[in-house]
């Protein structure tokens, strides 16, 4: 385990600079956010910058995963659930997994609680975390799960390997000028995923002089944030609590694009053309 290696002062930069400097070919990149605060703008910048051979970590995988896989950015996906708007695994993921298109996709599959524990261990810079065995068949197929004995009770428990992304990317409602970030509404694994990573990018709806956190809000201090990017609408078409609702029509349109290799190509061309 390495200590945290990136200790630059948080800085406010544009999206191309943040992704360009911090997301490298071959890197392990976590993009987190479930249902709300899905960091789509950052993901699309990764596509535009044509990053390749990424290990993508996305616990609750969805159309963001599907787009990055379909664009050929990903060679390994670490996840615990993957579904599009119809509840089924989306088409680009299935095409990569089943037909190596546009490239072969390896998967490393866990449960949500195992992923949470892996981030927590990574954030604490210990090599593994301990869970109770549920009897699921997953450990037979996932090398980052093992059994250890408790040195006190002798009982067998499940160990999962720590997860330390090279960079974690999340979206939030707002940041202040010093890089402190506030997330409102249901927040998934974002805080642990940011703390676990060697570097982090936070895209936000707005940058303010001073945060005035709401009750129950999660505040991520600026000293664990590498780069802050003003990206209003950066989680659309997902939801941002207090800003906008989920756009089901847009998500369905993406599902239609995903269903067809050619339509995806057109969509990617259009996306790339904006850079």
């Amino acid at each position, binding site marked *: 385990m390495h200590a945290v290696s990136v200790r630059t002062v948080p800085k406010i930069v544009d999206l191309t600079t943040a992704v360009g400097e911090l997301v490298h070919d071959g890197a392990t990149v976590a993009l987190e956010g479930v249902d709300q605060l899905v960091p789509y703008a950052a993901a699309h910048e990764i596509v535009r910058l044509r990053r390749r051979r990424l290990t993508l970590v996305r616990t609750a995988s969805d159309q963001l995963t599907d787009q990055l896989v379909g664009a050929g950015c990903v060679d390994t996906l670490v996840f615990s659930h993957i579904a599009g708007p119809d509840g089924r695994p989306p088409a680009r993921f299935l095409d990569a997994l089943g037909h190596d298109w546009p490239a072969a996709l390896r998967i490393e599959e866990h449960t949500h609680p195992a992923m949470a524990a892996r981030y927590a261990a990574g954030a604490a810079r210990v090599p593994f975390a301990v869970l109770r065995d549920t009897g699921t068949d997953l450990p037979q197929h996932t090398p980052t799960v093992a059994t250890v004995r408790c040195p006190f009770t002798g009982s067998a428990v499940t160990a999962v390997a720590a997860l330390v992304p090279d960079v974690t990317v999340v979206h939030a409602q707002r940041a202040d000028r010093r890089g402190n970030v506030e997330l409102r509404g249901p927040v998934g694994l974002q805080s642990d995923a940011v703390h676990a990573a060697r570097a982090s990018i936070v895209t936000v709806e707005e940058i303010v002089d001073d945060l005035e956190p709401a009750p*129950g809000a999660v505040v991520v201090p600026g000293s664990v944030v590498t780069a802050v990017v003003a990206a209003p609408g950066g989680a659309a078409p997902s939801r941002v609590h207090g800003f906008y609702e989920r756009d089901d029509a847009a998500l369905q349109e993406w599902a239609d694009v995903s269903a067809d290799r050619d339509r995806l190509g057109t969509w990617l061309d259009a996306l790339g053309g904006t850079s």
Partner: protein
Amino acid sequence: MSVPTAEEIMTLVAARAVRDRQVCLVGDGLPAAAAHLARRLHAPTAVVVHESGAVDVRLRDDDPLTDSTVADRALTHLALGVLYEQWLQAGRVDLGFLGGAPGAQLDRYANIGSTVVGEYDEPTERLPGAGAAAEIAAWSGETVIVVRHRLRGFVEQVDFVTAVGHGTGPLDRGLLGLRGRGPARVITDLGVLEPDPQTAELVLTAVHPGVDVEQVRAETGWDLQVAPEVVTTPEPTDTELAALRTLHPAGTEESS
């Protein structure tokens, strides 16, 4: 009141499984609707915990069930690590709901396969995966499974055990170190199945209005046991339907 849909029947029957004071863990869609419906009908003190981490969500009488209202009416939001470890794994959830992902398998001992159909490395169908289902199944005081009843999904034995129900018989949960009673009932669009207390095998105990037992057998991939007295699910009352439709004012939402 218009005729209830299959989804509405399933939601109402699921709601009846919720008792007062229980801590219920629910995912979006049907389970969330069932739990909040129960709070409006017969279990006003049930504590509804969403898989998003929203704890003790108390919708007001006219609130629809949306992401916004759930977030706004929560007592607090737990970090997911706390929800998974200190609530679910620690045994603080009394009642957990498990949904059938589209294409998922369920077997005669109520084990769930929502990872793959076929071999893991060469599946005939890739499914969404575990999410938190393995832990909900393992650590809740009891679980209720809500799933569409189709021959393809109701199999003798799941190809991949994503979440353990009753394993291969009544002793398995104990041997595996799991907590609670396991699946207490399986609610489908055709009827209700419950584990036999002696064998832990699922037995058909109720059919929904207009469904007959043969229809259920025909959609079940094993030799389905049928209770001596199969009851017919009571028709939803206008009160129940009205309460449910307040939660989903735009009409019934598809979910699974």
